[in-house]
């Protein structure tokens, strides 16, 4: 507990830590939500805020007994790490506090080269090559040598600045003690980090950690409540997205933001269309530009077609082309790869790397850690709206990153319970819908978890939506307990005991403006009514029961459900459907966009529901989830069933093979 003792010294050393931090301490939400059994184990850790001491955040939440067991998980001590932005942004007055920390923590260190003195000297000696490249584990081979040197130089300059706290090179983009709240919710609190020219910087954190808010502030969509943004060392105040764009910041948002009625080329050119001498739009040049960008990205798209009707992947590629066309000096990508294939991701990364090497600063947000390690040098971790740490990617294992994002250890994933399946609940036979899926047959038994796997666009969600009746189908039958359901009628499916937790929580799962209680009771308002009448109390009581059972974190049941975090919203959706007492639960991407902790809760819930005899159908794009949770896996490709695998047969390879068909074998 030496480090805990060292902390009191640390705190006074940060005079300019944001005043908006009265929550620091036991009252903070992360701590408040810990179950009482956690608490006695680390009483002294609580006063320590991870973001005031990025170095020890992982330790702060680890019980003492954990530590000896996992020393190799923390090869680098962050507080000595020259790359830590918290250090970079700290004034020299902060520094004296740090050496006091290091002796205590050096015990966990396995890399002798990592001592403070050595790191500093490394960055002061330009000749020290190998150490410099460690931030870039996968140096792309296609780089011209001079570019490489340039990039190295940048990195070195940036590194020395970070190490000494002097302005050896100005940050391209700097976020200084920025806070933003929406109503009572503090989305971002006192976050600082910097992007340097020629670096790719990852921003990670659970959903709701404040990443998207940061992105929107950098994009000029939101104005920070407090704190400053700096571009090239001078303060900026973006009045709108136009200002950010003018400052050279291009943003690729999580969800495509195209104009469906305009042509693809116009979408790309919007804002800086080429003009003729009469100030009319030069359509020819506009199309040529689009074509050039598409060639660079390797996308066979017709620039004159309207954006309406593009697949999500194509839309995302147009977004990327849009960002490229503006010749941005800062490129911010908020989960750009979610809908892309591996080939497309590789091509995107090649383009991004070349941009980076031309001196652009890249900020990359992703939940896929392999992409972060493949692309980025540094990573900034956020949790609950606060900055946790900024580190070299190479210094962190994936486990480290997750631990710091979550702020605690994850117990075993995928708690699948063994269940002997009961009678058949759902039978689907020869289900077809023109242009979407064909001849789908499968059955699900009580107590079973059946996963529908496949690529995005394989028709998995569409099949289950047709089964539930929200979508129509052309041919085939759906039977529950031997009784045929009416086509295209969700009510008939609900009456038969079916429940569907849909893929898109915001659009399909919940009515965001409606209160939590109304959302929970929406599917069974009819059953709750007495003599056809509903009174507030009935709904509230029903909602209270279920939100409590699922341990949903909420303020008032009368609050709009949109005010909850993603994970808690998903719990409300689950509560809404479990309250109907289903015999068959269909969950479509049950853990998409929710934090790691809630993810595990949802998995455990599914498992225990199945153990209680519920039949569960799960549609998921996450292979580990599919392999970890399912008793049987049905793989779809291009609207047909290509394989049905038992838990024993299923491996990553066999599922992918079935999902991709011959393309993998070839």
């Amino acid at each position: 507990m030496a480090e805990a003792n060292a902390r009191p010294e640390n705190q006074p050393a940060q005079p300019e830590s944001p005043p908006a931090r009265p929550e620091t301490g036991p009252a903070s939400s992360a701590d408040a939500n810990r179950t009482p059994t956690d608490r006695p184990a680390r009483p002294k850790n609580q006063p320590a805020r991870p973001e005031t001491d990025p170095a020890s955040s992982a330790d702060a939440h680890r019980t003492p007994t954990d530590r000896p067991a996992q020393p190799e998980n923390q090869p680098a001590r962050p507080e000595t790490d020259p790359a830590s932005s918290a250090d970079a942004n700290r004034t020299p007055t902060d520094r004296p506090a740090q050496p006091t920390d290091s002796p205590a923590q050096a015990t966990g260190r396995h890399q002798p080269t990592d001592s403070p003195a050595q790191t500093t000297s490394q960055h002061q000696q330009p000749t020290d090559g190998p150490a410099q490249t460690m931030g870039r584990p996968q140096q792309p081979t296609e780089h011209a040598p001079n570019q490489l040197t340039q990039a190295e130089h940048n990195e070195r300059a940036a590194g020395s600045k970070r190490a000494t706290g002097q302005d050896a090179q100005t940050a391209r983009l700097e976020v200084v003690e920025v806070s933003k709240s929406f109503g009572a919710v503090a989305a971002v609190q006192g976050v600082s980090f910097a992007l340097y020219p020629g670096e790719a910087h990852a921003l990670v954190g659970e959903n709701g950690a404040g990443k998207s808010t940061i992105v929107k502030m950098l994009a000029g969509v939101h104005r920070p409540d407090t704190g400053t943004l700096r571009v090239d060392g001078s303060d900026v105040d973006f009045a709108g997205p136009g200002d950010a764009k003018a400052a050279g910041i291009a943003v690729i948002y999580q969800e495509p933001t195209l104009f469906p009625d305009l042509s693809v080329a116009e979408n790309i050119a919007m804002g800086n269309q080429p003009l003729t001498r009469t100030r009319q739009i030069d359509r020819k040049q506009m199309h040529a530009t689009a074509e050039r960008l598409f060639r660079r990205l390797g996308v066979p798209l017709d620039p004159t077609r309207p954006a309406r009707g593009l697949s999500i992947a194509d839309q995302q590629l147009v977004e990327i082309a849009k960002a490229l066309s503006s010749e941005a000096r800062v490129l911010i990508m908020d989960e750009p790869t979610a809908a892309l294939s591996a080939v497309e991701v590789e091509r995107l990364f090649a383009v991004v790397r070349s941009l980076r090497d031309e001196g652009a600063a890249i900020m990359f947000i992703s939940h896929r850690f392999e992409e972060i390690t493949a692309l980025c040098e540094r990573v900034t971790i956020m949790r609950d709206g606060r900055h946790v740490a900024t580190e070299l990617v190479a210094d962190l294992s994936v486990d480290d990153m997750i631990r710091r994002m979550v702020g605690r250890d994850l117990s075993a994933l995928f708690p699948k319970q063994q269940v002997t399946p009961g009678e058949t609940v759902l039978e689907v036979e020869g289900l077809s819908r023109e242009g979407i899926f064909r001849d789908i047959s499968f059955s699900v038994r009580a107590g079973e978890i059946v996963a529908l796997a496949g690529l995005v666009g394989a028709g998995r969600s569409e099949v289950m939506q047709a089964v539930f009746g929200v979508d129509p189908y052309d041919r085939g039958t759906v039977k529950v307990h031997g009784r045929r359901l009416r086509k295209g009628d969700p009510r008939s499916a609900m009456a038969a005991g079916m429940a569907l937790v849909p893929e898109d929580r915001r659009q399909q799962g919940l009515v965001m403006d409606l209160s939590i209680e109304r959302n929970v009771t929406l599917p069974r308002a009819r059953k709750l009514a007495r003599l056809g009448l509903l009174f507030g109390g009935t709904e509230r009581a029903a909602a209270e029961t279920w939100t409590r059972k699922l341990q949903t974190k909420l303020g008032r049941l009368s609050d709009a459900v949109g005010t909850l975090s993603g994970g808690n919203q998903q719990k409300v959706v689950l509560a809404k459907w479990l309250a109907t007492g289903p015999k068959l639960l269909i969950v479509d991407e049950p853990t998409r966009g929710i934090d790691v902790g809630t993810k595990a809760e949802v998995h455990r819930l599914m498992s225990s529901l199945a153990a209680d005899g519920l039949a569960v159908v799960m549609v998921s794009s996450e292979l580990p989830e599919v392999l970890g949770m399912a008793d049987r896996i049905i793989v779809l490709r291009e609207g047909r069933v290509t394989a049905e695998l038992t838990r024993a047969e299923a491996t990553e390879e066999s599922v992918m093979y079935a999902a991709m068909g011959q393309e993998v074998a070839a």
Partner: protein
Amino acid sequence: MSDTLTKSATPTRTGKGNLRSKLTGWDTIIGVLTVLVLIIASFAVDNFGTSRNFTFMVLDLLPIILIALPMTMIIVTGEIDLSVASTLGLTSSMMGWLWNQGLSIETIIPLCVVIGAVCGVVNGFLITGLGLPSLAVTIGTLALYRGLAFVVLGDGAVADFPWNYTGWVTGTLGGGAVPNVLILIVVLALIFGIVQHATPFGRSLYAIGANAQAAHFSGIRVARTKFWLYVVSGAIAGLVGVLWTLRYSSARADNGSGLELAVVAAVLLGGVSIFGGKGSLPGVLAGVVLLTALQNALRLEDVSGQALNIVTGSLLVLSVLLPNITTAVRGNWHRRRLRQAAR
């Protein structure tokens, strides 16, 4: 479910904040405003408080308030029906024409309500069956139904309706202070209020308006619900057509011209969001009363009827503008406080 990972649910809070937001809610403001206008007018305006003027006011109120009942539901689902006044005109025309054909008034009245409902069926089919935008469809049927009204009756008028019916509409209960039609208003308002605010059907309206897709995924029959709203709206407009004709004892094709704007204005004034998903019937009732009382009082003060348009229009814009401004000011104040705290 119960291990170290699960976050303990915070206990549910109820009360204070909720009450405060209710008190500053638009329908409360509009209610208070309405009462204020009524009180001030009855002191400051001669003849405003008389029972005779009360009857007139209720009669003025009648068409707007009745049509506003289904209109509130329609706007809550995120749609609109601009054809109501034309439906009124068409039923009025049909009433005159049928009367000229020699049908008995007892047959004509239900028939006219059915005609109104048929108009609603056409709207409902175009909007929910073909999936066309309601704004455009009902602008179309606004012209269509009014046109048909003129085709039926030309620019003439039919006036010789039986006295006992026209007398009932303009009369009062036992010759007292309570107009007969007020009973009709109260009964219908109660029915619509209960349906909208205390039944599963009413709940589904708000869900549809706020997110139709999520409503569909929750087993709500979105298209069917909207369809029936239009049918009811048409039927009520038909009924109002009958009442209008009887009140003025005159069936004309241009009866109720422009009334759709007054109804929409009153509904929005009552705090219903034009985007759907928000609003309450009590607010709308207050909105209608406010609008009518204000017009009545100003007319008694000899302000020209057409100039009253300025008041109607301003109230309509202000009803949406003021809440927006309050929110913006509150947001600014909040941000300023944060900035000061940061210093």
